[in-house]
């Protein structure tokens, strides 16, 4: 006597998330140093790998779906030259990853609209960071400011990761 999972409804067709991801990655690949073909190949490999994992029914496969996409974004961003536009495109590519995750093909449609705060808040942070790099005098200074802010963010994240209940409101003291 075995217990198994019944088949779940199949995945939907491609949505706006993969379009946003493709556009952002192509834009980032176009500004990378070296061959554009290699850049586009890296972008395509990341998108295809991530999409395959995201469309699979297994929970573990879907959890690791961001890995190929993030890896491709990191490689492209690492190959990008120093400058405001490549940095903006790198941030946009990361935001596109979040938009793509919101458009999960195994969940109800319109996830990008419903999860707007999930990618809009990071978008504001990226905008602030990118604006600060433009206003500050040198690249080294902007890097220091951004690094300091990120170290603080990582520290806060590590604390919150250990205690996610801190994000919940207080419960009423009465039973």
């Amino acid at each position, binding site marked *: *006597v*075995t217990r*198994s*999972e*019944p*088949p*779940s*409804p*199949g995945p939907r067709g491609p949505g706006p998330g993969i379009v946003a991801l493709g556009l952002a990655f192509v834009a980032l690949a176009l500004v990378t140093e070296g061959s554009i073909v290699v850049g586009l190949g890296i972008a395509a490999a990341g998108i295809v790998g991530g999409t395959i994992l995201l469309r699979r029914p297994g929970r573990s496969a*879907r959890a*690791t*779906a*961001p*890995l190929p996409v*993030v890896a491709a974004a*990191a490689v492209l*961003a*690492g190959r990008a030259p*120093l400058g405001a536009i490549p*940095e903006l495109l*790198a*941030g946009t590519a*990361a935001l596109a*990853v*979040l938009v793509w*995750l*919101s*458009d*999960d093909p195994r*969940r*109800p449609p*319109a*996830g990008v609209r*419903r*999860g707007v*705060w*999930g*990618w809009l*808040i*990071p*978008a504001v*942070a*990226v905008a602030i*960071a*990118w604006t600060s790099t433009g206003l500050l005098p040198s690249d080294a200074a902007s*890097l220091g400011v*951004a*690094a300091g802010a*990120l*170290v603080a*963010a*990582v520290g806060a*994240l590590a604390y919150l*990761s250990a205690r*996610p209940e801190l*994000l*919940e*409101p207080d*419960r009423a003291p009465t*039973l």
Partner: protein
Amino acid sequence: MSAPAAVDIAPSLAWTPRAVVLLASGAALLGLGLVFLAPGLLFVGLPLLLAPIAASLVAPSTDPSVDLTWAVEGIGRDVDVVGELRVPPPVDPADLEVAFSLPPGLRPRDRPAIERDPGRIRFRLHWEAVDPLVVPVPPPRVVWRDPAGLVERRVTGERPPLEVERYPPEVLRAGAVRLERTIALPGEVRSRSLGPSGEFFGLRDAAPAEPPRRLNWIASARAGRPIANDYRVDRTGDVVIVVDARPTSLGPRADASLLALSVAGACGIAESFLRERARVGVAIFGEFLDAVPLGSGRAHRLRLRSALLAARLATEFAPAERCAIAMRRYFPPGVTTLVISSLADPDSIELVAFLRRRGFPVTVLSPSPLPPRPPGAMAGPAELADRIARLARRVRIARAWQEARVVDWDDRWSLAPFVALLRRPDDRRRIA
């Protein structure tokens, strides 16, 4: 003074594995960006680090409460579970993830249909029963999850229990069998219950699904509306159903499958006899005997069902005589006894012999461990092995016939031979 009741203060908001992946990736990119002085990596890592936090901020502030209403539909082997989850605002039904578990003994027939409307989620699951069964359906697991799948929150609410019952159709007629009486002068004690058979009691308006045989056509013609007869029901007698839950040489997997089938058969037969106002008892013999004494009525039906559904395959083998001795503590001798056993081992046949010697007239319903053989499905050595296995089973059943009447339950969706055998008088018992 009693201690205050414990309150569940466990956090219900949790990161998903995907959020951990994003956080780890973001932290790694941050480190790489600092080491290699690459601001592009920092810009990639920053949104990944912030996304789980942003998802937590937009999660519902408390655990959403979603109530479930569901039912089982379909006939025969088809099992359709239809239900609805009522989702109160402001929770969006699209953010709720619903996952179903397939109970043992059922297999999917088609993909589930899940429709999300404002304020509710409707679902229809298409399953198929492999064999007759009685099995509880686990309630669906419902969690709130943000669209990016980074944070999830527990969902509470009412989850009423649900059971799937599928019996062979002939089991409905099993209760009409005349049973042996074990109480003094049973005909002198009239039941107050009204039912479908017995002495005529009176007339009443017919129900919409009233069987035609129960309609009083003359009275209906006179009144101009359907009128049915009511009868004062006689209790027909007593019956004990013994389920053999001991391990056999077939192995735990086959034993569990046969026990599930035995439990389903016992449930169906017990309900059929209870419907006819007979007194029914149940005994489950694993390592020891678990018995529900003879009784009738709605509450007794629940007692029997609970006992049968709690039946588990014993891990230790028990001698057959233990069952026969324990049976006399709970049931009077002479009560009609139905033993449901696979008869896979010689000791199963001994159980029948011991029960008979202790005064229980036994009829055996033996679920066959051999799968049904479609014509032309096997060839060569496999066919030879199958034929030998069937011959060996026939020999075992023939040996059991020396002690009691036996029905080989090989077609699991039919109990017609069993009902026909019960209807026939037990000549051997009369001679004895």
